């Protein structure tokens, strides 16, 4: 199947625009979480959060987010994005085929 989005087919163009809109929305939500855990919990709110402990450990909460928690969240965010986008690619028929 040849896929020439700009050959003038308005239906294809509209589908691509919708795909891009959804992609931007996923990105926006995930980047908001990214900002919240790192710059929010780990930096701006670190001092007040340090009044609490991570349950069952000696970690002050703000310190833990800054040096551990945010990094775990980063990993999860990327894999969530990978899943969402693989689904989106298939839904809009713009995936690359093959297995894996």
């Amino acid at each position, binding site marked *: 199947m040849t896929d020439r989005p700009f050959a003038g087919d308005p239906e294809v163009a509209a589908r691509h625009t919708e795909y891009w809109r959804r992609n931007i929305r996923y*990105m926006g939500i995930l980047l908001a979480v990214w900002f919240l855990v*790192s710059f929010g919990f780990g930096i701006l709110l670190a001092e007040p959060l340090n009044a609490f402990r991570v349950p069952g*450990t000696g970690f002050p909460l703000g310190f833990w987010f800054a*040096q551990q928690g945010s990094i*775990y969240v980063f*990993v999860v965010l*990327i894999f969530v994005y990978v899943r969402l986008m693989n689904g989106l690619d298939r839904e809009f028929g713009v995936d690359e085929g093959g297995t894996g």
Partner: protein
Amino acid sequence: MTVQSWTFLLVAASFALYIGIAIWSRASTTKDFYVAGAGVSPLANGMATAADWMSAASFISMAGLISFMGYDGTVYLMGWTGGYVLLALCLAPYLRKFGAFTVPDFVGDRYYSQVARVVAVICAIFVSFTYVAGQMRGVGIVFGRFLEVDINTGVYIGMAIVFFYAVLGGMKGITYTQVAQYCVLIFAYLVPAIFLSILIAGNPIPQLGFGGLDQGTGIALLERLNGLHEELGFAAYTSGTKSTLDVFFITAALMVGTAGLPHVIIRFYTVPRVRDARLSVGYALIFIALLYTTAPAIAVFARTNLITSVSETPYSEVPEWFTQWEETGLLAFDDVNGDGRIQFVGPDSPITNELTVDRDIMVLANPEIAGLPDWVVGLVAAGGLAAALSTAAGLLLVVSSAVSHDLLKRTFMPKITEKGELLAARIAAGVAVMVAGYFGINPPGFVAQVVAFAFGLAAASFFPVIILGIFSKRTTREGAILGMITGVTITAAYIVYFALMNPELNNADNWWFGISPEGFGTVGMLVNFAITMVVSRFTPEPPVHVRVLVEGIRIPRGAGEAHEISA
């Protein structure tokens, strides 16, 4: 066997492995040389990216820096991992779809301008050399201490190894060597950390151990360390001393810099498909996080160990490692009050500090301080070398491809043959190794600090124009060129002014808004964004073929192999 024979054995074995891989994976085409034939699996690429990424600064300096900075060390931990989220969500998949060989390739084609391409080449070379300078110094330190050869000889040996596999194998050789180097370096990092964690906290998982209880006293480790700090006049470990604003800006500069570093970006040209690029960033971050979540644990263990083993110890009774590091000049004791004991105290203490410890030695000295077996000490040396060499090789490839591909093939000698270009790439890699070696012999400052500047420069030059190139079709060449030049110039000027020309003025009172030179890349980036967007608004729209190109890179289907784009 002694520490030194273990070290020789492990370092020699790891070097033999790298050379073997280099011979097996020789590059025969420019595509092999630049992007490893775009046939690397996402998992292998993730591992190679992690090794490429984790430099001597991560391996040797970072835990030491954190152990001296406490909470402030957060800037490195979040700064050097958070950028991967930006990379996965905003850059890697689109650049893979674009499918060229280098970062200036993208800039030149997207901004339909040879001037933009050349500006990008200059920025790439500038950033890469700033970064590589730190690596060679790391190689020198490891050789100097563990193999007891002259630091310069150490640098020559390191150069010879990198020369061999970078020049011979290009990206293909580098990628597979980096996979091996990742395994060596992560093993070397985790083994002592696990030992320490069991010893100090009674928990084999360092990430949990440093939040646990101190085995000796039964109080929470972090609480105990805060107590020790208070007693000795240091700031509380879990709070730090930097202003919140500065921490914010440095973290942002490192994150964005990560996403703008050419040697990281090109790694995602080497996988077969767009979705592999996304997945590969995820794998890379897992491999990186393994080290980055261990580092703060090592920092806490090392700090506690250092304080308890040297504070108020009579100088005549210091352990063997103390004397050995003293010989390298990286550890110094000056008995100011003449009582024969070591007073190791912070700035808030009424008495004078007598011990200076170079931050770079903490990870390397840690196994000895904790009295771990000799082979662990040798392993750490091999790991440090793996980290420094893998990053150096990745950076040298950027420099060589910038010269042979972007400057010769795409700008000045478009008629150059495939064979000629490959030869030019090899010569450029060879010359780059020499220059890197020069910096190793005449090193500029702390490893991590020099490296931190490279991030500021990458953040201020590439990140905005790549992001806008993908997400805004209206961005014009005039905007991009002016944005890149202004961003990199003001950042470099600020760094040079405070760090090189007037180090005595380099403190929060003189900085603009209290932002340190390490964090100024964030300002440079914002200025770059602003200028690029404003200028784009007032200059003629990009031509139709560029808008079609941008529409194309937003859709995964049809990525195919990395190829030349005829503009």
